[in-house]
C-alpha cells in the first residue's frame, strides 16, 4: 500500500465510497460520462483498488478524473455499496492538493471554476449570480436569457424577486455580515487556502505556457485540444 493511497483513504468520502469492487459494471452502464468521454468509472475504482501509487498518480495527473459529472447515478446501482462518484471527488481533491490538476487539460479548468464560483460565493453569497452569469459566455441562455440580461432589474421586479435589495426574497443582496461569515468560514475550513492554491499553481502553469492570466482563463474555459470524446469511429 502506497503513501498516496493511504492519503486517499484518509478521505471519508473514499472510505465510504470504496469497499471492494467486483467489476460488475453497473456504474459504467448508467454513467452519462461513459457514453460521452473516454471514461469508465469502474476502471477508476479498479485503479484505486490496486493501491498502486504510481497508477494513482498517473490518474491524478490525467484528464480522466475530470470527466465525471458527479450526478451520482452510479451510487444507486452498485451492489457492493460503493460510490464511484465519491471516489472521484476524493481523487479530484487530492489532485488539487498535490498540484497535479494543472497537468491535464480538464484539470486546468479548475482555475476558471474556482475563480468564478468561489468569487460568486464570497462576493455575492450565491454560487450563480446575474453579475457573473453572462449571455456572452452562456449563449444557450437563449434569446429569452438575452432579454432578461438586457432588462435585469425590470424582469426580476416583475416576477417578484428582490434583486439587489436588502431583506428576504430571491436574489436579495446578501448582507455584509453574512458575506463576512462566509469569508471566515472559507478561511478556517481551508476553502480560501484551496482557492489560493488553485490560483497560485494555475498562474505558474500559465507562465509556463506563456499565457497571461486572462488568456489562461479563456484557454481553460473555452478550448479543447486533447482527444476526450469516446465516439466510435464508424
Amino acid at each position, binding site marked *: 500500500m502506497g503513501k498516496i493511497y493511504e492519503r486517499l483513504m484518509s478521505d471519508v468520502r473514499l472510505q465510504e465510497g470504496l469497499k471492494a469492487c467486483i467489476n460488475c459494471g453497473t456504474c459504467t452502464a448508467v454513467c452519462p460520462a461513459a457514453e*460521452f468521454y473516454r471514461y469508465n468509472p469502474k476502471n477508476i475504482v479498479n485503479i484505486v483498488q490496486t493501491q498502486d501509487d504510481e497508477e494513482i498518480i498517473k490518474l491524478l495527473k490525467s484528464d480522466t478524473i475530470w470527466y465525471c459529472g458527479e450526478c451520482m447515478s452510479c451510487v444507486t446501482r452498485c451492489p457492493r455499496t460503493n460510490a464511484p462518484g465519491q471516489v472521484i471527488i476524493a481523487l479530484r481533491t487530492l489532485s488539487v492538493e498535490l498540484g497535479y490538476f494543472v497537468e491535464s487539460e480538464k484539470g486546468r479548468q479548475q482555475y476558471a471554476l474556482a475563480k468564478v464560483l468561489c468569487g460568486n460565493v464570497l462576493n455575492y453569497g450565491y454560487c450563480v449570480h446575474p453579475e457573473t452569469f453572462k449571455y456572452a459566455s452562456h449563449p444557450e441562455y437563449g434569446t429569452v436569457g438575452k432579454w432578461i440580461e438586457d432588462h435585469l432589474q425590470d424582469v426580476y421586479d416583475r416576477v417578484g424577486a428582490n434583486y439587489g435589495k436588502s431583506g428576504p426574497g430571491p436574489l436579495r443582496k446578501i448582507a455584509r455580515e453574512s458575506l463576512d461569515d462566509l469569508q471566515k468560514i472559507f478561511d478556517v475550513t481551508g476553502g480560501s487556502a484551496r482557492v489560493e492554491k488553485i490560483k497560485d499553481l494555475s498562474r505558474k502553469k500559465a507562465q509556463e505556457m506563456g499565457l497571461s492570466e486572462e488568456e489562461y482563463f479563456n484557454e481553460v474555459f473555452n478550448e479543447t485540444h486533447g482527444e476526450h470524446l469516446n465516439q466510435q469511429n*464508424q
Partner: protein
Amino acid sequence: MIDFGYGISPSSAINLDKFDRTRFEELAREEPDVLKCMACGSCAASCPTAGHSDMNLRKVILLLGRGREDEALRMVSHCMLCGKCLIVCPRGINTRHLIPSVTKIYQKK
C-alpha cells in the same frame, strides 16, 4: 443555424439493436470456434505484440460480436500470425486461422 461552440456527440455505447449480425454469423459459420471463446484472455496475454500494439484477440472476438468491426480490424492488422495464441487457448480455438477469416469476411464490403 447558430454555432454555440459545442454540439451533440454520438454515444459511445454498444447498441446491440443496431448491430447487424449477418457478418458475424458468416464468421461463425466459417469459424464455429469463435463462439467458444470464454474471454479468458490467454491469447492477449501471450501475444508478442502485447505492450507494443493494441492487438488483443479476446477483444477482437468480443468487438466483432458487438458490431465494433472497425476497431477489431484495426487490431487485427497488427497480427504477426505467430500462432502463440493457438497454443495457449484453453478452448482449442483455432485463433490463428481466425485472423485471415476475419479479414476475408470483413474486408469485402
